[in-house]
C-alpha cells in the first residue's frame, strides 16, 4: 500500500475502467444535449435579435401553439427537453447494465 500507482485513478476526461468509461460516455452524451438546450437556445435568440435593442426578431414574431416562439422555446421546450434527457439517461443506463460481460471489457466501449 501507499504506492500512488495502486490507488484508484479517476478522471472524468480520462476514465480508467471499462465500466467508468461507459458511465462517462453516457454522462457526456446527456451533457452535450443539456448544454445545447440551456445555452444554445438563448444564444440563437440572442443572435436572431441582434438588430433590436430588446432582441425582437422573427423568433418573437412567429407563433407556435399560440405562443411567441422565443417564449415557448424556453418556458416549455427546454423543460420538456430536460425531462426527456433524464429519461434518456435512465434508458441508456439500463441498457449499459444488460450488456454481456464479454463486450464490457476492452477499449471498444468508449
Amino acid at each position: 500500500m501507499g504506492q500512488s500507482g495502486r490507488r484508484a485513478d479517476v478522471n472524468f476526461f480520462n476514465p480508467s475502467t471499462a465500466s467508468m468509461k461507459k458511465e462517462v460516455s453516457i454522462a457526456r452524451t446527456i451533457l452535450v444535449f443539456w448544454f445545447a438546450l440551456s445555452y444554445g437556445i438563448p444564444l440563437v435568440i440572442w443572435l436572431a435579435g441582434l438588430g433590436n435593442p430588446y432582441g425582437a426578431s422573427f423568433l418573437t414574431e412567429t407563433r407556435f401553439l399560440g405562443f411567441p416562439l422565443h417564449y415557448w422555446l424556453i418556458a416549455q421546450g427546454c423543460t420538456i427537453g430536460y425531462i426527456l434527457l433524464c429519461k434518456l439517461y435512465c434508458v441508456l443506463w439500463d441498457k449499459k447494465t444488460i450488456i454481456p460481460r464479454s463486450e464490457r471489457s476492452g477499449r471498444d466501449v468508449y
Partner: protein
Amino acid sequence: MSTKILIPALVMAAVTASAGPLLAAGEEIYQIERGFKLIPAIIMVALLCVYIGVGFISKVSETSGYWVAGRGIGKLGNGAAIAADWMSAASFMGVAGLLYLKGWFGLGYIIGWTGGYVLLLCLLAAQIRRFGKYTIPEFLGDRYDSHGVRLIAAAVTVLIAITYSTAQFKGIGLISGWIFGMSYTASVFFAAGVVCAYMLISGMAGVTRNQQIQYVVLISAFLVPLWILIRNAGGAGILPQLEYGAIIGDLMQGKTAAGQLTGDDLARVRQDYLPWGNGNFYQFIALVFTLMVGTAGLPHIMIRFYTVKNEDVARKSVLWGLFFIGLLYWSSPVYAALGKFWNPLGGTAVADVIILSAPERAGLGIAFIGYLASGAMAAGLSTVAGLLVAGASAVAHDWYATIFRPDCSDRQALLVGRIFTGALCLIVVIVALNPPALIAQIVAMAFAIAGNTIFPACVLGIWYSKANKYGALAGMSFGLGMTLIAMIGWIMEVPFFGPGGILPATSSALIVCPLAFLINILVSNATDDRVSNESADRSDQVIRKLHNMPGGAIEEPAPRKELHPMA
C-alpha cells in the same frame, strides 16, 4: 489568500447588515378585501392539523430516523419528496412573481431550476447513493479526509438553510397575513411557531411521509384554479398550460382585460416579453448557470438520494422528481400571464403575491383562493422542514457527533439536533422580518452559495481522484468568500453586485464556480506530495466505493430499523 481573512469579517458584516432596516417588508398592497377571512382560515387550519397529525403518528425515537427517514422509499415516493422539498414558496409564489415582473427574463429561473437536475443526475446522484452515508458534509469530509472540509461544508449547509428559509418565511408570512389579517411581523412569528412545533415533534420520518401528502395537496391547489381563471380570461379552459400562449401573444400587442394599451404602457408591456427587455444576454446566461449548479449542489436535495433503496431508484427518482416539478413550472407562467392580463402595470408591490392577486381580480371565489393559499403555505412549510433538518444535521451530526464529541450517544446527538433546529428557526425569523429582496431572488442567492462551494467540491471529489484536501479547502473558501462578498454588495446596493451588475449576488456562479474548480485542481496538483499516505489511502477507499471499484470497503451501512408508528 486574502479571502480567508475576509470571511469572518464578512459574516459579521452580513449579520449586522441584515439586522438593520433594509426594505419595509409586507408593504405589498394587493388585497381587495382586508381582514380575517373565515373560509380560507378553516381550510388552512384543517391542512395544518393534517400535517401535524401525520407527524405525530410517526414519532421518532432513533437518530437515524431523524436524519434520513429510514432507507426504504421508492422512486415515485422519493420523486414526490424531492418535488415537495423543492416546491417552496419560491417556486410557488416567487417564480410567478418574477415572471410577472420580468416577463421573458424570468423564464431563466424556470430553466435554471429544472436544468440543474440533469447535471445532478449525470454527475452526482448515483455516486452519492453508492457512498451511502448521511449528509453532504460527511461525504465531503470523508472523501477529502479533512475535518476542515467537513466544517466548511457544514457551515455552508447552515448558511444555505438560513438564506433559503428566509425566503420561505417571507412567503409564509405574506400568506398568513392575507388569511388571518395579521401584520407581516406577527405572521412571521406565527409561521415560526408552526414550523418549530411540527419539526421538533416529528423529525424527518414524519417529514418524508408528509412530503408526499404535501406534494399532492400542493400541486392540486396550484393547478385547479387555473382552469377557472383561464375561462374567465376568455380561454376554452381545456389545457391552460397551452392556452396562455395566446394571452402572451395578445399582451405583446397590448391587449389586456381593461382594453387596448397604447403609447408608453404598450411599449412597457411589450418590452417585458421581448428577450432582453429586462436584462441582457450575459445576465440571463449567468442566472441560468448559477441556478443550475446551485440545484446540483443543494444539500437538502442531495440528502434525498441517501434515503432510497439503491442507485437505480436514485436515478429514477430524479426523473420523477423533475416531472413533478415540471407540472408546477409549466403552470406558474400562466399565473404570471393572467396577472399581466388583469393588471398589466403592477410593480414590485404585487409581484410576490401575484398568485393571490390575479385570482382576486379574476373573481375566482374565496374558497379556491384559500385552497391556493394553503398550498403555498404547505410549499413553504415542507421546504423549511427539509432545510432545517439539513442544517441541524450539519451541526449535530457533522460537527458535534463527529468532531466535537465523537463518543456521544444517539440521544445526545438527537438533542443537539433539536436545540439547533430551534436556534436556526430563530435566526431565520430575525432575517425574515427585513428580507433583502424578492422571494425568488433571495433563493437564488442560496443557490449561488451551493453552486460556488458544494458543487465544485462534490464533482471533483467524485470525478477527479487527484483532488485533495488542500485543493478542496482553497476552492471552497474562495467560492464561499466570493459569494458572501456579492451578497453583501447586493444588500449594500453596490452596482457591481446589483441586479444589473457584472457579478450579481443572484448569478455569481458563472464566474466564481469555474474559478473554484480551477483553484481546487491547481492547488491539489501543487500540494500532491503533502498529503500523507494514510490520508490518501482513506480518500482512495471512498473513491473506490463511489465508482464500484474493487478494493474499496464494500460494506452496506447497517439496515435501519423500520420505525414503528406507535413506538
